[in-house]
């Protein structure tokens, strides 16, 4: 297993270069630049050109990228060209907010999705049909829209949860829970419905297999059949779904953070892109790539735990 982890990590190094290079290239295709943002709409072309030169934005493309890489490998990710704040500090500060959304929403999606999917597969009938309908809604409704509806009910009408904003866990655990509850629910809805549907399909297939009939015929307790055999054997495709959903949810935080005005990586990426703040954009891209690598690694490890054949291979 350690060899697998080591191999994965080695493979991810070129990926970091590829992603940051691609982001750097794409950013340079977007019209405008940071100098124009800083100087505003009344700036003369001469002033913009001068600031571009000062900031090194007129240097050749590869030279600029090499300059960034040269510093990044030593742990220096530069400073925001707009706010002057160190990129590393900004990213780390905001990573906590994004993780505060991402981890609980994935846990909620996994637990609620598996429970609903198992319940649907085992009981069938109206529960299965209800889950089908809710799944369709979960797929169809965009998370930001769900977020707006949740705000209007729980913040504006009932007044029990804050409409916007984030309180760090260290400041007040209870306020932290209050500040992330609605965003987490909005972000996890798609995951819950996707995992519920995946779990139901997989579990139904397993429940129909001969060895389950054999276990039941031999008097193995139902709880053991469901939890040890059905759930375990149907969870490999579910783990795959969870991996994909995690990566999708990472992108979903961009919208959710804007709706709930949370200072996470998503809103940082949005603002940095609007400002053409290249050091920040690259810092966020690097962080998102590392997160995706970590998620894939965790999913691989879960595969190994669930399926011994994977470990052997």
């Amino acid at each position, binding site marked *: 297993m350690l060899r697998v982890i080591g191999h994965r990590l080695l493979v991810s190094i070129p990926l970091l270069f590829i992603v940051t290079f691609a982001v750097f290239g794409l950013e340079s295709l977007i019209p405008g630049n940071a100098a124009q943002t800083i*100087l505003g709409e*009344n*700036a003369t072309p001469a002033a913009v050109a001068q600031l571009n030169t000062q900031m090194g934005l007129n240097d050749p493309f590869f030279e600029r990228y090499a300059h960034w890489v040269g510093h990044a490998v030593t742990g220096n990710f530069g400073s925001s060209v707009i*706010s002057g704040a160190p990129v590393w500090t900004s990213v780390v500060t905001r990573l906590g907010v994004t993780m505060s959304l991402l981890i609980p929403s994935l846990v909620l999606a996994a637990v609620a999705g598996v429970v609903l999917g198992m319940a649907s597969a085992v009981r069938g009938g109206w529960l299965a049909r209800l889950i089908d309908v809710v799944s369709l809604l979960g797929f169809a409704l965009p998370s930001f829209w769900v977020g707006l509806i949740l705000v209007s009910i729980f913040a*504006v009408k009932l007044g029990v949860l804050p409409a916007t*904003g984030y309180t760090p866990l260290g400041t*007040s655990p209870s306020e932290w829970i*209050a500040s992330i509850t609605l965003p987490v629910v909005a972000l996890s809805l798609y995951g819950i419905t996707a995992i519920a549907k995946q779990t139901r399909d997989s579990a139904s297939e397993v429940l129909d297999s001969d060895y389950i009939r054999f276990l039941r015929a031999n008097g193995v307790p139902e709880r053991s059949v469901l939890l040890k055999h059905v759930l375990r054997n149907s969870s490999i495709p579910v783990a795959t779904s969870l991996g994909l959903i995690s990566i999708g949810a990472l992108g979903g935080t961009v919208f959710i953070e804007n709706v709930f005005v949370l200072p996470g990586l998503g809103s940082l990426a949005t603002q940095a892109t609007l400002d053409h703040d290249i050091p920040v954009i690259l810092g966020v891209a690097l962080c998102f790539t590392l997160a995706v690598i970590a998620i894939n690694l965790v999913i691989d490890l879960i595969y190994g735990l669930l399926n011994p054949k994977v470990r052997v291979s």
Partner: protein
Amino acid sequence: MGSTATRSVVRRTTAVLAASAISAVGLAACTNGGGAAGGSGGGGASDSLTMQFAGPPVSMDPAKAGNGGSAAFVSLAYDPLIYQTGEGKLVPDLATKWQYVGTGNKVFEFDLRHGVTFTDGAKLDAAAVVASMRYFLKAGGGLVGNVGSIDAVTAVDDDTVRITYKQPYPIAPESLTQFFGIGNIIGPKGLADPKSLLTSSDGTGQYVYDGAKSVSGNRYAYKRNPKYFAPSAQHFKNVSIRIIGDPNAVLSAARTGQVQFASGDPQTAAAAKKAGLTVQTAPFFNWSLMLADRKGTVLKPLADSRVRQAISLAFDRKTLASALGGRFASPSGQLVLPGIPGYVKGGGYDYDVAKAKKLLAAAGYPHGFKMTVLTQSLIDPNTKYSQAFANALNAIGIDVKLKVESTGIAQFAADSQSKKYPAVIFPTAGSTLYATSAQISSGLFNPFKSADTQVDHILATANAATGTKQEQLYEQANSRYADLAWVVPIMSTLNIHYLASDLKNVTSSTINPNPIPTGPTSELSWARK
């Protein structure tokens, strides 16, 4: 299929999930005491103020900061030399007295308030003010083009500063207010290390920027300045500005008391009013079609003033304003809005399609022509205004193709100055005719560098004059601009703000549509009842 054990497992797990959800909501309810503040920017206490702004500041360095409503980011920590009240009156702040020296509006002097210190402990004196103003002029910020052509800033004595302009500059007092940057004075320590101004502040203002408690692009925190010269004007211990761009999120934050002051939106204003918020408005943007290519470089017809006048006659301004902005827009046919010196009663263009067609025919374009117009979707969401303006021109045979820039205002400005587009849709905003004429004579409003000797002469005379004579000359300039039809004003929109019912001393007007929370006296500073 469903055995008792299965149902038990399902029931138990469902109960756990339900309990978790209920306890989370319950915990949250206990936390907020049934109210709805919460979150990092939660207000609630009357000794704190949380306000909203749609976007982050361009910079926290006063010399590189933005203007308009974003002046609040800087003004909380940096007093201006002269304060412009919500009604537009100029009152003493760091400068207690000011006047032009001699005639011609080229030399301006002001005296400084005594007993004022910067947060770095240094005393406010003429040397410090001169250093700050000189730093502004060299810092490369976006507002440096709005403060007149300054030849020199010098200290006359310990508490008197003199500004010498290269050209007559009639709005020197206005340019030293909170909206122009040069008047927001930075302390010597901040000037010695300008990078420090991004994460802390060194001004004489009511509050001190607290970079450690701020999150760039999300929340900007300020704490009371213990050295402020007029403690009675400090009504809050803490002030925060939260960045919330989405109009629905703004409304939610205002309705639930998370912010006490927010920028409004025509789409959400009715709901805000229904929710008990005060909806305050003031005329602000003057949406206009700039006929930029006045020499016909890329579109020959625009070189003919009859064509430009025909275009000016093609807009049913009353209907457009009513349809596009409801009660938050008014028809506007002049460069400046009513109430601003230079506004000509009964001036501007009426709606007259027949006359417009005649003018086009006389100019040699009886069947109209094709025109590409540059616009943007940042402050004209979905280009609703632009499309309506373009449609209006169809009635006189001008086929408009809109080129929409959606990546940012800065890029829009660069596109405008590329000289590829003969016309541009964008609002002007100026509280004086001088400011508006300066605006339309440069940058994105005048990419082809047009000039008119007649209007320049009138303005030069007006800029050196004072009182009624100056107002009459501005009216003449305004009329000349109407004849030239370089800029076609169409409608003015209101700056909308939502105020919590307990927030007081917030005023705005045509001259100053952007209220800020601090002022040099108790009555001019916002407070909560």
